[in-house]
């Protein structure tokens, strides 16, 4: 049976190996959060996968709601979420950071992408209708603490379909910590 990694030193190991170069470097929120004795900061990221023939898939963050048993959790959006090129599958775009009080063990996350995006495929550009681009999932503090982040993988090949006037986004996602 496959077991989840519970390693807390795995991130440090990856840093040592130089494999986290794709992440963003604005750490002000993190620093601020680390200075807060009762809050833990976690990153929320979005990464494209299976880009296939797409030369560009530009989507913007619309709204992020994070709650724990209905109570809102503080979320601070990242400037990088304004226009994310998800065809760059090496990069996990930072949507923002959320801050959990120590007693919070589970969170519900809803990411709504901005309703219109754009793509380029075979040198031709077009619109992405992202109205159905809502991604919802729940996660636990235990899973979040593995790497202090949660990454939404958006499988582009299985998420973008021909629609009127462009592509329709029906998110096919997997969540990794």
């Amino acid at each position, binding site marked *: *049976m*496959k*077991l*989840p*990694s519970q*390693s807390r030193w*795995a991130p440090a*190991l*990856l840093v*040592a*190996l130089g*494999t986290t170069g794709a992440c963003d470097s604005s750490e002000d929120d993190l620093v601020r959060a680390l200075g807060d004795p009762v809050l833990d900061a976690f990153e929320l990221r979005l990464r494209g996968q299976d880009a296939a023939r797409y030369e*560009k898939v*530009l989507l*913007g*963050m*619309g*709204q992020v709601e994070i709650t724990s048993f209905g109570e809102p959790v503080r979320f601070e*959006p*990242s*400037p990088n*979420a*304004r*226009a994310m090129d998800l065809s760059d599958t090496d990069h996990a775009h930072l949507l923002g950071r959320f801050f959990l009080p120590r007693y919070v063990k589970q969170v519900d996350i809803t990411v*709504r992408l*901005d309703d*219109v995006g*754009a793509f380029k495929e*075979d040198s*031709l*550009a*077009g*619109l992405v*209708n992202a*109205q*159905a681009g*809502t*991604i*919802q*999932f*729940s*996660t636990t503090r235990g*899973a979040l603490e593995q*790497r202090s982040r949660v990454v939404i993988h958006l*499988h582009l090949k*299985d998420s973008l379909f*021909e*629609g*009127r*006037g*462009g592509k*329709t986004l*029906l*998110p*096919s*996602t*997997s*969540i*990794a*910590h």
Partner: protein
Amino acid sequence: MMDRKWLWLLFIGAVWASNAWANDFRAGQLVNGRKQYTVGTYPETLRFTFTVTNIDPALPAELLSATAPLMKPCTRAPTPPLVVPADGQVTYQCEIELESYDACLTLGIHDANPVTPNPEVSFTSTFSIGWDAGASQAGTNVLCLPRPDLFCDDTVYLSTTSRALDGRPAAPSRLYIFDPATGTLTLQGEAALPYNALAFNPFDNILYAIASDGIGAPRFIRVDATGASRVIAPLDTAAPPSALWTAGAVLKDGAYVGFEHGTRRLIRVNPTTGETLSEQVVTAPGDFQVADFAVSPRDGQLYAFNNATQRLTRIDPLTGVATDHASPARIDGRPAEAPVMSAAVFTRDGELYLYGTSGPDTRRASGFHAVDVMTGHLTTLLTRPVPQLADGAMCGFYLWGAPRPRPTTRDRGFFGASESALLECLAYGPISLGALGEVSTLPGALGILWANPAIASNNARRTALESLKVRTAREALTAVCNERVFNTRAPALSALANPASLDPGPVEELRQRLERHNHAGKRTAIPLRKRIFAMDPLRAMERAEEPRF
């Protein structure tokens, strides 16, 4: 140099740590075998298929949850938690009976998509799974139509069929809507049989065609907005069963007229009963190969492209006499390179368009062309790769008193990507958005249309009020442009009238009303005379200037 033992330990550590990145499962979902499905008749059964795939090729994994909130009545067996073997898959089936159009809309009220139901998507079904180290999600869209009716507008319908080596149809035909602004083909649905000779009947707003597979007797059929077909009657013709009917149109007297490629037969059919009214052989001065024709609303003649002579040709539907244009067609001012036109449509304005392929054997491309009926020459409007097309159809004339489609609207993405449409909008003068300011330039308008509600272009985070202003300004500008470009009256912007105070409550109400308005007429075609045949959202984004409210 680092010791080899340390390198090996680091390698093992990295491999072990990468387990935390593994995506053990992938969720999948289809409705009636598709990601997007259209319902036009009720009751109809929707069959949802949910799949859970363990994508790890080596290890089993434990699935902890599988939920589809709209499918609560369905039992999912085996029930999680359960172990799925490596590369294994669990499939759940769920059938729901849509009793009525209203029942479909009710599902849209309760789904996770905040903008459903709307004229393009009635509801979104979301399937979510979870396991100890992650989660996965997959969705499908369902569109319910009150009736499977079409409307008389400039919608270009294209049907496809796959052909075997001997030229006979090999699979059921599919109905697409072609969008000339973007070159996209949107699947409407698949029929139960292969057909060709598609025609739009303005007398009842229904598509008609002839189903012929080259073996059995041909049948006269109707095709509805969901692409579904229904046989009206066997086609009473003297042509042999091996005949392949290729072209179809509805004349101004209400008769369907079809053309058979091998024997050159032209048949007139009563579309209501399928009864043959007359049949004759087309007389042409030379070679004659026509894949489709369309009726001119001006003179009632059938116009087609003669693929044999590479000339525009005209057929008198009463006498069956075909007359080629005096000179071969030129495409974009040059001699045509072996063009084969498979679809012909006339707009109600009397403009003829042809869809087909041309170019040298090594670089053949499909294109949508405007035709000058006087000169017989073609102008390429756009070129795109497309599936194998069989035929085209469009409403060629409007009948007084026939039901009208919703007034045309487009969303902000359209105006943010079509420079010609936005310039036409701005040509009427500055656009006042009340308390949100005034727009008069192309970069300024693009800046509003492409503004992100959460983050400004200078990377500043927007407050809730700033976000509301952005979202409202985008919809208000779009509504004004819909009025200016498509003559579709915009809702009043009275909630934005007072520059001194913007009350978030009424502004949010207005934003929602504007958003609904801007999406309400998206299924109605843009008149082809608008000449909107190019969209480039990426270029537009580059030109956008951040708005100041």
